[in-house]
């Protein structure tokens, strides 16, 4: 059995985050694709509480929750490519924005794309507020982590890649170059970054999936 295993899902941004981190650190791992309609006994054993992916298993010990896994990876393989900064205040700041993205942004953006017409305006307003916040946080940096990608960039993968695809599938436009030039530029840097590029799901496959799974329920 491989020392490191990742139970994941090809189209999940949460799963992708962990793959990015493992690749950044040069960690070899065995990847196990989960079928969420038929979860493997191993997954249920390793994550009995949430029964979700991703789950990282290192030396037979499971870790669940993508943010928890990212910190674990950073602390365990700490010789290269730090995901979190060294300074405690900068670490707290990175954790704050990662949590903000996870708890507020992603849900708001998702809602703004998929909700019924009457709710969409309110959802879009909130989503745009959050995008502006991130635009202001990024300032003139290349990445949220500075010159190199860090925790916040990894956690923002939804904005970097998934959002554009969902926008294409739904016709909703949120992250435009016009409104958020810095964030837009960041998203281009993000997908071209070598550590990220190889770990993103195939664009066409994801677009087709989004259209098929959700397209039917959208009424314009």
């Amino acid at each position, binding site marked *: 059995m491989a020392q490191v295993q990742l139970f994941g899902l090809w189209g999940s941004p949460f799963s992708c985050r962990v793959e990015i981190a493992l690749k950044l650190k040069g960690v070899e791992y065995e990847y196990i694709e989960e079928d969420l309609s038929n979860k493997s006994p191993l997954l249920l054993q390793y994550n009995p509480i949430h029964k979700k992916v991703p789950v990282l298993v290192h030396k037979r010990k499971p870790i669940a929750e993508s943010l*928890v896994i990212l910190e674990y990876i950073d602390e365990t393989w700490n010789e290269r490519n730090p995901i979190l900064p060294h300074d405690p205040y900068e*670490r707290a700041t990175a954790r704050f924005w990662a949590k903000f993205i996870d708890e507020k942004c992603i849900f708001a953006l998702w809602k703004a794309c998929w909700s019924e017409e009457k709710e969409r305006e309110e959802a879009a307003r909130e989503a745009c507020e959050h995008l502006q916040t991130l635009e202001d946080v990024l300032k003139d940096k290349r990445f949220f982590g500075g010159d190199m990608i860090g925790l916040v960039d990894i956690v923002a993968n939804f904005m970097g890649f998934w959002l554009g695809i969902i926008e294409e599938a739904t016709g909703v436009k949120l992250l435009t170059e016009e409104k958020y030039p810095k964030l837009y530029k960041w998203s281009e840097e993000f997908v071209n970054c070598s550590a990220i590029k190889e770990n993103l799901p195939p664009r066409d496959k994801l677009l087709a999936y989004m259209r098929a799974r959700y397209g039917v329920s959208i009424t314009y």
Partner: protein
Amino acid sequence: MEGENEVKLHGMWASTYSKRVELALKVKGIPYEYIEEDLRNKSPLLLQYNPVYKKVPVLVHNGKPIAESYIILEYIDETWQNGPRLLPQDPYQRAQIRFWASFIQQQLFGSFYKLISSNGEEQEKAVEEVFEKMNVLEKGMKELLPEGVPEVDGNNSGVLDILVTATFGPYKAHEEVFGLKVLDPEKYPLLFSWVQKLNEIPLVKGVLPPHDKLVALLQFMKQNGLKPSS
């Protein structure tokens, strides 16, 4: 040196999140200035320090603000490395604690919130959910602490002790107001005995909100349909 290590905490006396930070500061022996916030009339400083959420607690260290209680706890542990460590050194143990902190926050508090803000059949379902989550927590803590709860005092408390204290310490007030025994000693013996031990610690007694004052506030909120929000 003056101003070298200036620590201020913007908090609220009944807020469980605020209490977490106070407990951590006290356990670490860090001197701080406490600023009580009126949540119906938040200070301009608070809004400046936490523009995203506009909530307490906010720790301000040498003029730099940190928000979100769990993040503050980790910051405190990483910055003041003398004295008791709030988190263990081992990455796997740290991951487990972070997992449970997240569970308490999102799952447990989520269901508490549903419980106090619903009525009738919906509330009955919410009660079931609370008991389910408490079960999960009890089981999880049993696995995490196979030898039972270690003897705790103000000198060796860690993050989990702090979270458990802040969440369940005032359980008698909660029971009195909501008429529901959540921290049931028969259902959750480990959690119950843990809370008993923690509540005996003088440091904890000094931090937790006074029973009668808390009951009065919770009654007021219940009667006026107010929801907890820091």
